[in-house]
């Protein structure tokens, strides 16, 4: 019998970075040094999850996921499953399942453990969009982003790392909480949480080492995730982590990704790990979970499609006012245009391959049609196609959650043209002939319905 472990992994960090030093001037306090990642106005946890999952599945020969788990502390919908939109965007088979494990930061560990204990290939997607009120410490220390792991068996996939041990500890206590719908999380006095978390972490750590038959010194890289920064630091000290700790650059440039932080830090560890190393993921969230992995020889030939270090160092600035506006913390006058109508559920259902999967069609002569054209016989998946801007315009009149609308006529490599909105874009950088790729976004929300579709962004 083969082993089980990680087949692929990726982190998605959105394009914008808020300079923490700009916060205090407006908010009267708060902020700090470095930057935090900021989701676009057209992103939510579902769209960021799609981007992380696409990056994970790209660039490696991987099995098709049979089960999709989506975990976030900030779901775009409740009642309705969010994982199904990710399932559709990834064009997974109808016969495969998609589940939300949502609400708490810890829920992602439930998904990961279910994936590791299950059979077949499981895609674990996690995402978070974290704001907090202006000037607060959450605003400065957290970030927005997503991370995805593909879990499978060594029998049908080449593992990057195999799971070798697990430990867990659970305790009911109140450290951090948020009422559904609120932007602000509340926290109890930090010292209390610290006194709960550190022993829980130690207990889970010891259990995991025991189950793996290892001693602490044999662990090469240690990722500790948790929303309680002080407890994370105290546990790292207690465990004697030292320079084996992963993720300092993520905290400085991107921020704590909340529900996405565990998988993001594990991915960060794997991206720099060498073959045969033991990597520990430690998560402090309403208890403690520890998973130990040993990297395989395959990791030496793995080239992540979007390395976290590159993303952490990249991005473009956003001013604090725009950040507040995008998160709805600073309510601003909406454009004096009619708001868009809600998309039709039945129409969207009929065109799900196009709307969520960006699947066009082609005719007998091979011409690609976007959207698919009646009479065409062949479906043509185009979400991974790159294109060139044939012409573009800036529309200061059209309704947008964040005017102006930048719009381009894009000709895709391999055929097909689509007039499509650009995103993550600074107007003065758009040129005829510029290269673009596609990204899954939320065009607008109407009647509570998130209108998901694709936009293009400069490469």
């Amino acid at each position, binding site marked *: 019998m083969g082993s089980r472990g990680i087949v692929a992994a990726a982190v998605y960090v959105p394009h914008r970075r808020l300079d923490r030093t700009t916060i205090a001037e407006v908010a009267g306090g708060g902020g700090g040094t470095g930057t935090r990642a900021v989701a676009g106005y057209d992103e939510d946890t579902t769209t960021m999850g799609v981007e992380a999952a696409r990056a994970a599945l790209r660039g490696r020969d991987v099995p098709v996921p049979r089960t999709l788990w989506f975990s976030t502390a900030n779901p775009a919908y409740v009642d309705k499953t969010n994982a199904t939109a990710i399932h559709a965007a990834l064009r997974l088979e109808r016969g495969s399942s998609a589940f939300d494990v949502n609400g708490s930061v810890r829920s992602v560990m439930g998904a990961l453990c279910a994936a590791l204990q299950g059979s077949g290939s499981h895609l674990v997607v996690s995402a978070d969009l974290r704001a907090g009120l202006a000037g607060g410490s959450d605003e400065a220390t957290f970030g927005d982003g997503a991370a995805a792991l593909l879990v499978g068996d060594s029998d049908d996939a080449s593992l990057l790392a195999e799971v070798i041990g697990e430990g867990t500890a659970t305790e009911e206590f109140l450290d951090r909480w948020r009422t559904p719908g609120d932007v602000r999380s509340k926290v109890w006095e930090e010292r209390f949480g610290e006194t709960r978390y550190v022993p829980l972490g130690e207990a889970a750590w010891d259990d995991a080492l025991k189950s793996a038959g290892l001693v602490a010194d044999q662990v090469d890289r240690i990722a500790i995730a948790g929303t309680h920064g002080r407890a994370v630091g105290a546990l790292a000290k207690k465990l004697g982590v030292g320079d084996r700790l992963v993720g300092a650059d993520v905290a400085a440039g991107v921020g704590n990704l909340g529900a996405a932080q565990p998988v993001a830090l594990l991915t960060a560890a794997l991206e720099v790990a060498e073959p045969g190393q033991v990597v520990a993921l430690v998560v402090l969230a309403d208890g403690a979970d520890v998973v130990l992995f040993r990297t395989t020889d395959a990791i030496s030939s793995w080239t992540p499609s979007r390395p976290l270090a590159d993303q952490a160092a990249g991005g473009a600035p956003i001013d604090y006012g725009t950040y507040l506006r995008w998160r709805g913390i600073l309510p601003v006058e909406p454009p*004096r245009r009619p708001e868009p109508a809600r*998309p*039709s559920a039945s129409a969207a259902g009929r065109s799900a391959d*196009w709307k969520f999967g960006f699947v066009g069609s082609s005719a007998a002569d091979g011409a690609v049609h976007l959207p698919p054209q009646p009479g065409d016989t062949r479906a043509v998946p185009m979400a991974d196609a790159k294109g060139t801007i*044939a012409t573009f*315009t800036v*529309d*200061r009149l059209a309704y947008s959650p964040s005017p102006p609308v930048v719009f381009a006529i894009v000709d895709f490599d391999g055929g097909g043209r689509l007039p499509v909105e650009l995103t993550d874009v600074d107007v003065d950088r758009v040129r005829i002939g510029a290269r673009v790729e596609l990204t899954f976004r939320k065009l607008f929300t109407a009647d509570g319905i998130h*209108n998901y*579709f694709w936009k293009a962004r400069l490469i």
Partner: protein
Amino acid sequence: MGSHGIKDRVAIVGMGCTRFAEHWDKGLDDLLVEATAEAFTTTGVTKDDVDAYWLGTAQGGMSGMLLAKPLQLEGKPVTRVENMCATGSEALRQAAYAVASGAYDLAMAVGVEKVKDSGYQGLNAFPVPSDGTQRTLTAAAMFSMVAPAYAERYGVPMDELKAVLARIASKNHHNGARNPRAQFQREMSVEQILAMPDVAGCLSVFDCAGVADGAAAAIVCRAEDAHRYTDSPLYVKALSLVAGNGSGLTDPAYDYTTFPEIVRCAEDAYAQAGITDPRVELAMAEVHDCFTPTELVLMEDLGFCDRGTAWKEIQAGAFDLTGDLPVNPDGGLKSFGHPVGASGLRMMFEAWLQLRNEAPADRQIATTADRNLALTHNLGGYPGEMVSFVSIVGTSSSLA
């Protein structure tokens, strides 16, 4: 199979047109009553004498009852038609063909739009339930993409092209200033227009059609009956319509410097009318200047000048009121305003005035004595996906 047209078989014998304006004090019914009343009067008939009605409105309401109610028509067939911004022209086309078929002796085409009740600036399409993937760009932004594409293809510096576009707007304001029914009756210099801020691409609000309420109407009969109603009818030489299949949006070969639907439509209209050189044969043209780059490209698509030369011809004044071929002598959509369903018939109203020498003296075209044909061009949609209408009318009939 073939597009044969109805050259000289139908005549326009009476017309009416309201002022186009922000009619805060007039509703759709008021506008319909006003435009049709003028048409009945000029024709010398009553509503009961007209056998059938076609009502064009893009978003004014549903069904023929929209006209039957305010006019209190008794037992008349009324059909509501819609073909985007070419709606008014479509109403005329239906009425003319109905008369040509022999089904009716006298038919009326009415176009109306009450756009200023929406509470928002500009034109706003009503929402059709959809999958939400359709672009939500404004028409201004869609047409704005023509300008840089044209500049690129013909090597015109963007500054120069902007001046050309401003000249188009300035010319139409000049003409509108001589039109008591126009929405904007004030001249605007090229310099004033160039100083306006961009709102969509390189277009300012002065590159866009005026948004106005209004109505216009025409009464048609078989050509042989025309002189029962007027001494100077307009004979219908051609009515052509092309509905695009949207291929420009998906075809990488489309370059935004031409509107293929209009080229096809114009060719068909010229064939119906027997016109070989529109630049020489036409006395005037009313074209769909929804945005200034549209008028620029239309000059080439309608065959008024060679490809790549319209910008020079415009600068040389070829399409001015006193130019070689006056275009939009009434001020066009730019100055007259654009009540969607009414615009096609408003264009025809200017042909009606000009060819019959009834335009105000300060905008009457001098050449109508030598040239007695007028063209109206009306489009709906956007670059890459549009409907196009072209009509040609004249004061003499080959069958008379």
